[in-house]
């Protein structure tokens, strides 16, 4: 039933929506830009429906196998560039995540992004007092970007060719830049957008280098080594046959991973992600929680057989993932900005996924990506809802919202529990499988790396539970502390008006709350359930890898004792949060902050990474070193070369112009002499 055309439609629908909004509505019908929202929702909705059908047919029924030949994009001699769809369980899973979350976020945005004047009680706020950018034009621009972003992400996950993948990879980066800097009139937003673009660019550079290296190593006639499936199926054999050295393979894998580090905000390129929270909140929900940042994890997953073939690369992936999981969690402990807490938790969770990939638990990592998308999007939408009411993101100026915003509270609670990994919510199942796999391969396999990351991960579980409930208590419990009217740094979204958000914002949160509760159990039950096979999702994913790779995979399983331990750790984190942040705390956060002041400052300043990059790399090495050297080269070598060319052009041109005197006799003479010279050389030259 689902055919190739329909699968292409998944990608093209949001792209058409982008074209409609950006090229027709925004230039010509900007007065009626309100329709941009519904249009975008409609197109992405259709895309979502097809994605679900594709998912069912490919992953559940297994009836769909692809499909058509790739389209030739460019043929130069023996070199061929193709564009096609790679439809494996990983792709279908990503399609559902991207379109599903995008649909919810865009429904939410239709209201959230409207002119603030129109829904904040017009009696005390005329829309003419708003800055011009907050008016209607913004609406069409926003949905144009969102549609383009969704299309790019879909193109990325569907790509069958490395070059195709890279094009969309960069497009995703561009959209992220545009959306983070959406409120470009705010310096902080403009700076954050720039930072995101440049930091991820460092990673992209690694990716690109690896691509070129791969291509130069494997460029052979009739074998298309730009095709992802060809790479995955043949590279390991190339290594065993000696065509490609093991070192080269590791380099390629690490290069890809560097790209993934940048995109997924892994240590040490994590610095852009918290700043990216300057973008509109639905943007954070879509791209910094559910989709774009998962592109890095997706990339490692996409080339998983390549990574598996290199033990060193796998070790790096596992360690970076494990370190990130813990490292980001520690910074989340002290942040006062609700979105930044969520941002750190995202980085931390992405670390879990990476570490799962690193220890060989491919299906489990993607499973966690899947569940995480739903509850993290839910949490971000919740933070947007809170901001809608209070006008601030600073939790120090919130409080007491539980009674005013019951639905937001409950959904946020569900999201937090799911993220903390409390039984039986979605996050529990996926996180537990990661921990279990790390533990098993650590204790039974005796792999020291696995054991290390297991320890890192279990500490992070405690912290995750703690900071989520710290955020929950600071936001929803106690007394209201003033909102944006008290917060000197807030950019008022509107006046404070405590109350539940409008229906169109609440609805997506309610819908997302459902998968946040059940999706883990439904998709990957530990035992057979209502016709669903045990560990169905992980099993399907794992068995989509080339057969030769299966022996390297970690199995899917469930262990009650380990689940109990991790739950206990999470619960104690929650307990500590309650003790510290309930209205009359047992332990005062201030006193702890004072006792551990150096630690607190270190965490609060994000381990001084921003200062390190800005001060050392940018100011010292770049400005004083590279920039100076480039400047010298530019002035003395490039400019000189240009001047020589200019001089040659001017003089040589003058010489030739002697002949170009307008006289035909001269022209005929030049032609004749030319013929004689050519004939002489041609005939007697050899």
């Amino acid at each position, binding site marked *: 039933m689902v055919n190739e055309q329909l699968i292409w439609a998944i990608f093209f629908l949001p792209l058409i929506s982008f074209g409609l909004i950006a090229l027709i509505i925004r230039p010509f019908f900007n007065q009626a830009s309100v329709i941009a929202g519904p249009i975008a929702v409609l197109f992405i909705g259709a895309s979502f429906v097809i994605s679900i059908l594709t998912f069912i047919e490919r992953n559940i029924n297994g009836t769909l196998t692809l499909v058509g030949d790739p389209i030739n994009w*460019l043929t130069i001699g023996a070199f061929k560039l193709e564009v096609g769809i790679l439809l494996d369980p990983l792709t279908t899973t990503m399609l559902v995540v991207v379109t599903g979350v995008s649909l919810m976020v865009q429904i939410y945005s239709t209201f959230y992004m409207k002119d603030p004047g129109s829904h904040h009680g017009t009696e005390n706020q005329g829309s003419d007092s708003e800055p011009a950018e907050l008016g209607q034009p913004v609406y069409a621009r926003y949905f144009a970007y969102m549609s383009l972003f969704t299309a790019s992400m879909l193109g990325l996950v569907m790509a069958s060719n490395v070059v195709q993948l890279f094009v969309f990879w960069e497009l995703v980066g561009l959209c992220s830049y545009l959306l983070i800097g959406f409120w470009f009139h705010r310096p902080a937003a403009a700076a954050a957008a720039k930072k995101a673009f440049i930091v991820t660019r460092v990673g992209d550079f690694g990716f690109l280098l690896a691509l070129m290296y791969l291509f130069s190593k494997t460029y052979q006639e009739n074998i298309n080594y730009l095709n992802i499936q060809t790479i995955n199926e043949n590279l390991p054999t190339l290594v065993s046959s000696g065509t490609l050295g093991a070192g080269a393979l590791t380099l390629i894998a690490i290069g890809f991973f560097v790209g993934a580090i940048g995109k997924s905000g892994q240590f040490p390129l994590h610095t852009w992600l918290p700043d990216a929270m300057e973008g509109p909140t639905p943007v954070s929900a879509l791209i910094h929680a559910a989709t774009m940042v998962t592109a890095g994890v997706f990339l490692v997953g996409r080339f998983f057989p390549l990574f598996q073939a290199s033990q060193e690369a796998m070790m790096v992936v596992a360690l970076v993932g494990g370190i990130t999981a813990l490292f980001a969690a520690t910074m989340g402990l002290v942040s006062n900005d609700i979105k930044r807490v969520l941002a750190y938790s995202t980085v931390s969770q992405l670390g879990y996924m990476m570490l799962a990939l690193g220890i060989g638990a491919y299906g489990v990592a993607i499973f966690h990506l899947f569940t995480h998308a739903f509850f993290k999007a839910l949490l971000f939408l919740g933070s947007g809802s809170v901001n809608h009411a209070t006008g601030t993101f600073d939790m120090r100026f919130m409080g007491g919202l539980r009674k005013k915003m019951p639905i937001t509270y409950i959904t946020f609670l569900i999201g937090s529990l799911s993220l903390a990994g409390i039984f039986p919510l979605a996050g529990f199942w996926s996180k537990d499988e990661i921990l279990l796999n790390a533990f098993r391969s650590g204790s039974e396999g005796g792999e020291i790396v696995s054991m290390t990351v297991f320890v890192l991960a279990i500490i992070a579980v405690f912290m995750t539970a703690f900071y989520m409930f710290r955020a929950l208590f600071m936001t929803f419990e106690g007394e209201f502390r003033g909102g944006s009217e008290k917060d000197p740094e807030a950019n008022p979204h509107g006046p404070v008006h405590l109350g539940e958000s409008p229906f169109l914002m609440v609805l997506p949160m309610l819908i997302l709350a459902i998968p946040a509760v059940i999706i883990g159990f439904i998709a990957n039950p530990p035992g057979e359930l209502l016709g669903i096979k045990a560990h169905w999702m992980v099993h399907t994913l794992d068995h989509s890898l080339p057969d030769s790779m299966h022996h390297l995979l970690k199995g899917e399983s469930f262990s009650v004792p380990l689940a109990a331990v991790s739950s206990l750790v999470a619960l104690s984190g929650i307990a500590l949060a309650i003790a510290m942040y309930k209205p009359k705390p047992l332990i005062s956060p201030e006193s702890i902050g004072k006792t551990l002041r150096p630690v607190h400052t270190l965490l609060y300043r994000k381990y001084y990474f921003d200062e390190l990059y800005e001060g050392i790399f940018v100011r010292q090495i770049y400005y004083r070193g590279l920039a100076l050297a480039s400047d010298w080269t530019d002035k003395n070598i490039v400019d000189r070369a240009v001047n020589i060319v200019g001089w040659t052009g001017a003089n040589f041109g003058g010489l030739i112009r002697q002949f170009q005197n307008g006289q035909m006799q001269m022209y005929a003479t030049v032609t004749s002499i030319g013929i004689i010279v050519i004939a002489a050389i041609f005939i007697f030259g050899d």
Partner: protein
Amino acid sequence: MNLQDIYLISPEIGIAIVAAFVIIIDLFVSNKKVLPVVALVTLLIPLFLTIQLHLDTDIGSKTGFSGTFQVDDFAIFFKYLILGSTAIVILSSTQYARRFGGHQGEYYALILFSAAGMMLLASSMELITLYIALELTALPSAALAAFIRQRKSAEAGIKFLVLSAVSSAVLLYGMVLVYGLTGSSHLNEIASSITNNGLGSSPALLFGIVLITAGFGFKISAVPFQMWAPDVYEGAPTPVTGFLSVASKAAGFAIILRVFYTSFGLDNANIDWANMMAVLSAISMSVGNLIAIRQNNIKRMLAYSTVAQAGYLMVGLAAITALPGGDDNAGPIGVLFYLAGYAMTNLAAFSVVIAVSNKTNNDSINSFSGLARKSPLLAGAMALAMISLIGIPPTVGFMAKIYLFSAAMDTGLEWLAIVGVINSVISAYYYLRVVKVMFLSSPKENEKDSETSYGVGAVSAAVIAMAGTFLFGIYPEPILRIAHTAIDSLIG
């Protein structure tokens, strides 16, 4: 001559009828704005006839008129290209042609007659036919160049006529030598005669080849046969300049490929003309680019630019024997692809020049000052055309250059590819200068009150050509595929 022959030549007959029809209509209508519309609509007839020939699989490669005329995918490719270019030139002339007063009918008819000659040229398989077609192309062009009754235009016309006659004489002399040695004027028989009689190293034959190259070199304005181009390009009416620089050049490359691959092909005769092409290529691009830097008149600048572009195109003529693993046909395929891309790009540029000249009646580069503010669309089209001529993505010019230069690399002509790349960098100087003037300079005050418009025709021609430049820069495969089959039918 039988019905089959007429069927084969039907597109050429069709376009000649269109030309005659336009003249007849011209007698009866007083509103001359109708003429380009009539011409464009009736141009669909030769187009349909070409499509019919293309789709008629029975035709395949078929010769008619006793083997002097051949319809194959190669000829069809150029017929499409010439028809398309002619249509765009006519579209872009709608406003400009008013300068010709009561002679607009003749103007359109001459363009169409010249196009008929070019289409014929692409199909000729015999030296005399080839020569007739060439003259049918050139004579209307000379008249067209002199179409504005001003000193410069008349001078352009007479220069074109005389120098064209000189080059024809050279070409004829070359043909006579070849005929005298091989005893045949049919391209196929020339080839077999060279092989059978072992004429491959005969100095007389080589001299004949050089003379033929010179004759064709005039058409494509390759150095040192380019001297006419700047004066004629500057003096001729701008749409005519565009027509000469695109359609005429395409026809020239068509006949070069046809003659050299059919008669002097490497399999048949052991004649190494590739090196000659390589050297001419390097000289053409260098001379064209270096002189273009100094030009202040946009048409003169574009004249030198076409000389340089001819140099890039000749890279494809030089790249004929691939190293192991490469594609032997990449060079000629690259020529066809580049010609198609160059046609779109240059027509976009000329349409903008026409539009601006409609408004300002001025051809200096400075008349483009502040165009970005006055007409962002035209400025955008011009900017895209310029970066396509340089060879920067996302344009078809970039793809075409990649293709040609990689063909050069595959045939061991690394030095030529390097010369090409350096030349591309140099060319950026004068192409980007136009962009700079458009976007960074402010409009001149006195032009703001100009009453005349840019001309709907010229603007739409610019938009169409720009769209092609952009779209095929992103997805070039359709053109490449057609070019591939065309070259397969030529070389086999």
